[in-house]
C-alpha cells in the first residue's frame, strides 16, 4: 500500500467524550477486544475501503436482499444498509445477555398464559387491570384457550442498548412477529465475502443454526395426535416489505412458504393446495398480524388471512407461532412492569435492567412528565417502527407545548423514559468516506418451545446512520452491522 497518497481510515475519527464508544475507552485507547480488528482495518486505505463498501452493497442488491419502499405509488427496491465494521460482544458479556433475554421470554410466556386464564397478577394488584382492559392487543377470543405445548411467544426479539454507564438495558420486548433475523445471517455472509481475513483472528459463534432450531421449536409445539408435523411459513405476499425474510426462512428451514390463498379449512383442519391435491398443515409460523389471520374471527376485510383458521386453532388441530394475542404483552406500558412480572412468575431478580419508565396513566408520573419533557423521550405505547416518538431535548418550546397537549388528550397512550444515550460504534460513512461515531442498539432472537429454548448467539446490531440520530429502525433510515459473539 502506498502510504504517500492514501490516508489511514481512522485518521479523521472524531470522538464525543459524553458517549460510550464501543471501540475506544475513555483514555482513547482501543479496547482489547477490538485491538486486532482495529489494526487489521487500519491497514486499509480509504480508497480500498470505499471499494469494499461498494462491493458489499452490490452483493446485497444482486442477491435481492432488499426491502420495498413506496414513493409516488412506485415500489422501489432498497438494500438494508450494511456496515463493514462488525460489533463484537465478549463471551462473558454475552452470557448475561443470553440468560437475561431467556428469562424475559419465559416470564412473558407465563404472564400471557395468566392474562388469558386466571389473571392472578391483576387480582393481586401487581399489574393494573386497565392496562389490559384498554389494550387493543388483548384478544378475547384467546380467553381460556390453551395453545399447543403451552407456548405463546415462541419467537421473541429483545432490543437492548448500552447506556453511557457501559451497562445493557432492555428497550423493548417484541413478541408479535419480530423481524430481522435473516439480516443477521446475511450480514455475516456479506462480511465474509468482503473481509474474510479478519475471521482468522477471532473465535466467533456461528449464526447459521437459527433455522434448524426454529424448526425444532415449531415441531415441539405440534398439535396432539400428529407424529411428524407439516410446518409452513405464511406470508402476506411478495409485496410485503419483509418478504425477503419470509422466503429466506422458509428456504433455510426447508418448509413451504404459503400465502393465505394457498390454505383452506375443512372440518376444522387446515390444508394447503398442492399440485397433487390438499395436504394437511399442522404448524404455521405466521408473519401476518393477529387481526388479519382469519376474516371470520377478526378483521373481515382481511384478504391475506385464512377463513376458519382460528376455529381450527381453537380445536387444537393446528399450531400458530407466535400464538394470537401475544401483542398484549409487548405493549410498551407492560414493559415497565417487567421487573415485577419476572419476580412474580419466576421468583428471580431481573438479569437485564429495564429503563425507568413513567406512565402517563399514573397521576404523579404524568405530573413529572409534563414538567420534565425536555429530559425525556415520549413514546406512544402501541406504535411499532419508531413512529410517534418525541425526544425532549430536540423539541422547541412550541413543540413541547404541542406534545403536552397530545399527552393530555390520551394519557394512557403515552409513556416517558429518561433520554438514554445509546452507545456509539465506528461506522463507515459514505458521504465523508471515513469512519464516524454512530449510535447502535442490539436485537437478540430467542426461541421458546415445549421443553426447549434457544438464543441465537449473535444478533442484529442496528445503526442510526444519520449523525446524532438515536432511532435505528430500518424504516427510519437505519443500517446494520454483523454482530460477533466471541467463544471465549
Amino acid at each position, binding site marked *: 500500500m502506498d502510504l504517500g497518497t492514501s490516508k489511514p481510515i481512522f485518521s479523521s475519527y472524531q470522538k464525543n467524550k459524553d458517549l460510550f464508544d464501543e471501540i475506544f475507552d475513555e483514555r482513547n485507547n482501543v479496547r482489547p477486544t477490538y485491538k486486532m480488528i482495529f489494526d487489521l482495518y487500519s491497514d486499509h486505505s480509504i480508497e480500498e475501503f470505499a471499494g469494499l463498501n461498494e462491493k458489499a452493497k452490490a452483493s446485497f442488491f444482486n*442477491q435481492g436482499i432488499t426491502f420495498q419502499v413506496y414513493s409516488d405509488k412506485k415500489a422501489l427496491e432498497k438494500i438494508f444498509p450494511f456496515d463493514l465494521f462488525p460489533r463484537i460482544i465478549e463471551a462473558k458479556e454475552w452470557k448475561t445477555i443470553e440468560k437475561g433475554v431467556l428469562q424475559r421470554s419465559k416470564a412473558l410466556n407465563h404472564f400471557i398464559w395468566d392474562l388469558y386464564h386466571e389473571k392472578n397478577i391483576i387480582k393481586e394488584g401487581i399489574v393494573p387491570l386497565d392496562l389490559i382492559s384498554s389494550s387493543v392487543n388483548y384478544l378475547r377470543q384467546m380467553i381460556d384457550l390453551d395453545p399447543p405445548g403451552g407456548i405463546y411467544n415462541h419467537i421473541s426479539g429483545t432490543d437492548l442498548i448500552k447506556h453511557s454507564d457501559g451497562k445493557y438495558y432492555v428497550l423493548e420486548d417484541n413478541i408479535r412477529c419480530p423481524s430481522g433475523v435473516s439480516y443477521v445471517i446475511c450480514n455475516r455472509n456479506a462480511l465474509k465475502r468482503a473481509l474474510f481475513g479478519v475471521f482468522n483472528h477471532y473465535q466467533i459463534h456461528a449464526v447459521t443454526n437459527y433455522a434448524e432450531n426454529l424448526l425444532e421449536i415449531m415441531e415441539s409445539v405440534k398439535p396432539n395426535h400428529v407424529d411428524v408435523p407439516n410446518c409452513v411459513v405464511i406470508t402476506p405476499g*411478495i409485496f410485503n416489505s419483509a418478504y425477503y425474510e419470509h*422466503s*429466506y426462512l422458509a*428456504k433455510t428451514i426447508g418448509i413451504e412458504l404459503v400465502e393465505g*390463498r*394457498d390454505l383452506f379449512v375443512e372440518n376444522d383442519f387446515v390444508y394447503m393446495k*398442492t*399440485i397433487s391435491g390438499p395436504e394437511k398443515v399442522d404448524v404455521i409460523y405466521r408473519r401476518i398480524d393477529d387481526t388479519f389471520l382469519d376474516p371470520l374471527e377478526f378483521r373481515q376485510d382481511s384478504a391475506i388471512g385464512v377463513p376458519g383458521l382460528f376455529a381450527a386453532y381453537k380445536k387444537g388441530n393446528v399450531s400458530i407461532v407466535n400464538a394470537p394475542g401475544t401483542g398484549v404483552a409487548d405493549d410498551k406500558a407492560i414493559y415497565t412492569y417487567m421487573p415485577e412480572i419476572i419476580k412474580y412468575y419466576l421468583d428471580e431478580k431481573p438479569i437485564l435492567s429495564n429503563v425507568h419508565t413513567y406512565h402517563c396513566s399514573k397521576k404523579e408520573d404524568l405530573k413529572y412528565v409534563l414538567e420534565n419533557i425536555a429530559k425525556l423521550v415520549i413514546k406512544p405505547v402501541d406504535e411499532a417502527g419508531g413512529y410517534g416518538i418525541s425526544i425532549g431535548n430536540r423539541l422547541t418550546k412550541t413543540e413541547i407545548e404541542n406534545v403536552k397537549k397530545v399527552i393530555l388528550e390520551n394519557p394512557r397512550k403515552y409513556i416517558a423514559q429518561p433520554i438514554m444515550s445509546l452507545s456509539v460504534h465506528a461506522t463507515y460513512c459514505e458521504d465523508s468516506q471515513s469512519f464516524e461515531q454512530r449510535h447502535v442498539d442490539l436485537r437478540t432472537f430467542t426461541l421458546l418451545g415445549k421443553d426447549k429454548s434457544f438464543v441465537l448467539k449473535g444478533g442484529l446490531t442496528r445503526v442510526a446512520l444519520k449523525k446524532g440520530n438515536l432511532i435505528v429502525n430500518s424504516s427510519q433510515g437505519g443500517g446494520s452491522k454483523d454482530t460477533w459473539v466471541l467463544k471465549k
Partner: protein
Amino acid sequence: MLARVANNLFWMGRYIERAEHTARFMNVNYFSSLDAPNKLSQSRQFVLHSICSMIGDDVDDDIGLNEEDVFFNVGLNPEKPYSILQCVKFARENANSSRDMISTEFYESMNKFYHFVMNYPKTVFVKSGLHDFTTNVTEHTAILRGKIRGTLLHDEVYALIMLGINIERATQIIRIVKTKFEDAQKATGGYSNPIKNSFEWTTLLKCCESYDMNRRFYKKPPVQLTVLEFLILNENCPRSVMNSLNQIQRHVTLLDMLKIKDKSSAAFLIGKMRSEYEFKTVEEIQKNVEKFIENTLNTLVEISEKLEKEYFNY
C-alpha cells in the same frame, strides 16, 4: 408443492425462454438483412414487419414502421406485454413468488438479469445498443438455464420449470419457422425454387442457433427441406421441436407417472403428439407446411391449458 408456486415456476421458465427467442430473433434478422442478397430481404421495412409478426403484433405490409419504435416496443417498452423487458419482469416476479423453492445462486442470476434489463438506457438501445442488449439477454438466459440445471434439485420443481421452458421453446421455434417460412415465400414469390432462397433459411437457422450444426449434419447449404427437417424432426438438435417434445414428455412423467393412462390428461396428449412426430417425415410436412405449423401450435396451447387445469388450478 403448492399449486400456486407450481404455476409460478412453470411461467418463470416460459418467460425466460421467451425473452431469449425474442432477443435472438431481433438480432439475427436485423443484422443479416444488412447485407442480404436480394432487395426485399435487405429492406428495413421487411425486417421490421418480420420482427413484429414473430412476436405476434402483426402489422399490414403496406403500413410503414419506424425502426426505433419497433426496437423500443419489442425490447424495452414496459407497456407492451410482449417486450423483452416485460418477459424478464414477469420471469422475476414468478421467481419472487417461488423464492423459497429455488436456489440462492439461481435467484441471484435472475436478479442480475432483471437489473440489467431494467437499467438498460432506452436511447442507447434504439440507436446503437441492439447488438449489445440482445446478446447480453441471450447470455443471461444461458446462465439461468445453467443454474437451473446445476443448482436445483431435479425433482418436481425442476420438472415444472423444464416443462415451461420446453413448451415455450417448441412454441417459439415453430413461430420463428412460420415467420421465416412466410418471409422466404415473399422474398421469392412462392417457394417453387427452394434452393434460391437459401438466404432466408440460413437466417432461420441462425435465429435458432442451429446454423453451424445444420452445416455439420448435412454438409450442404441449407434449403427448405433440410432446414425444416432439422428444426422440427431432428431429435439431436437441441432447438428442434422433437427435442423439446422429448423433454416435455420426460418432465411430465416426473410429475406424475400414472396420469398418462388417463386419456384426457396433458401427459396423454404429450405422448400422442410426440409419437406422431417421431414417425413423421419432412416430405409429409412439406405437403402443407402452414397446416402443420398451425396444428403444432394448437396442440402446444392445448397441452399448456391441460397442465394448468391439472396442476395449477387453485
